[in-house]
């Protein structure tokens, strides 16, 4: 009798432990935190849009943004802007954007951005645009992007002052 009880007790503990371990296993993947998403209203005639965000990674492992999807665009691509030695800017598609371990990456004008190609309708100031981000390690994540005025230079109300300081005009990187 005692042995049977002990057996049941043991199995209960083992199964509980298993459940806890499995649960831990699934939650061990920390999703990157998407901060300050923003976009600009498209000027009449413009058929493409761009989305900018800050992606923060609280995890000890590096993650990669591999794709983005949006219903109102024909195609969504990850892009960067390269500046050549002659000062010529070149926008290029990238396969992924690395989110460093315990670090962050900023998608901003003149740098990494999510490009919405062939918008089926214009982006209007004040709207909230749903987007899906897919990460290599942590899977997909839905985000909502507030669309600012056509003249927005950063997320609304962030007190961002992109024109307050001179930046280096020297070309940055061209892999």
């Amino acid at each position, binding site marked *: 009798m005692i042995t049977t009880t002990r057996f049941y007790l043991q199995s209960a503990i083992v199964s509980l432990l298993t459940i806890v371990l499995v649960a831990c296993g699934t939650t061990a993947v920390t999703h990157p935190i998407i901060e300050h998403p923003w976009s*600009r*209203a498209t*000027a*009449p*005639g*413009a*058929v*493409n*849009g*761009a989305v900018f965000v800050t992606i923060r990674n609280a995890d000890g492992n590096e993650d990669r943004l591999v794709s983005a999807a949006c219903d109102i665009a*024909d*195609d969504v*691509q990850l*892009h960067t*802007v390269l500046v*050549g030695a*002659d*000062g*010529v*800017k*070149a*926008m290029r*598609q990238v396969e992924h954007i690395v989110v460093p371990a315990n670090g962050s990456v900023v998608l901003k*004008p*003149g740098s990494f*951005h999510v*490009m*919405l*190609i*062939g918008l089926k309708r214009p982006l209007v100031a004040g709207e909230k645009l749903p987007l899906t981000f897919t990460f290599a390690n942590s899977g997909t994540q839905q985000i909502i992007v507030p669309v600012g005025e*056509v*003249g*927005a*230079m950063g997320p609304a109300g962030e007190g961002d002052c992109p*024109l*307050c*300081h*001179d*930046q*280096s*005009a020297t070309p940055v990187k061209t892999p």
Partner: protein
Amino acid sequence: VKKLPKFPRHSRPWRNGALVLLVLCICCVLASFLGFVVRQAGEHATARLRPFVLVDSSGRTVTERQHPGELLLLYFGFTFCPDACPTTMVYLSRLMKALGPDAQRMQVAFVSIDPERDTPERLRGYLAAFDGRFIALGGTPAAIAAAAQSFEVVYRRTPPLAGPDTYGFDHTDMVYVIDQQGQQVTMLGTHLSEATSIERLRQHLPTVAKVLAPCCRMPTLADRFRQLPPRPQTGTP
């Protein structure tokens, strides 16, 4: 005490001398001012541009010497461009707001390097979204290429991104400032702060001294160097 005899009014000997001194002083001041004006003009004189001819939306000819605004702010871009061009247009519209009344003395013009897709109608709507005062300048592809060459602007068409009509351009992302004498006086860009950009523009707004300067100036050796051979061919699509 016995008073000294007064000189007769018309024969005070120092009177003429004082007058001459006064005139000399005025001359000195004028000469140094003129020297300052000439130096200023010398500092601001920049390379004369190779001529270009574009047209605005109402068919008026715009050249490096004949353009609206005491300063013409020229940008080469295209509406398909999702990042650099809108960012520069936003930058320019903010500058115009910050300049206040001085903005009326300048004209921002957008030259599309993509005349195939950028129709005048599309450009009009596009520019109005940033600032109603901005104008589009266009022309034949050859005229646009020639204008780009004047500023050493480079643009190269890139392969389509997705569909057949989704090609883009690698391009120089700068704003060129031209005065009424057909000279490029400075460059602007989104890498500059608003304060620096405004300072550059105000520095080159014609003042009375600067307008007078060319009349008081003899051509110098430096001027002869400025009229040297044309620049190498660069900006072709």
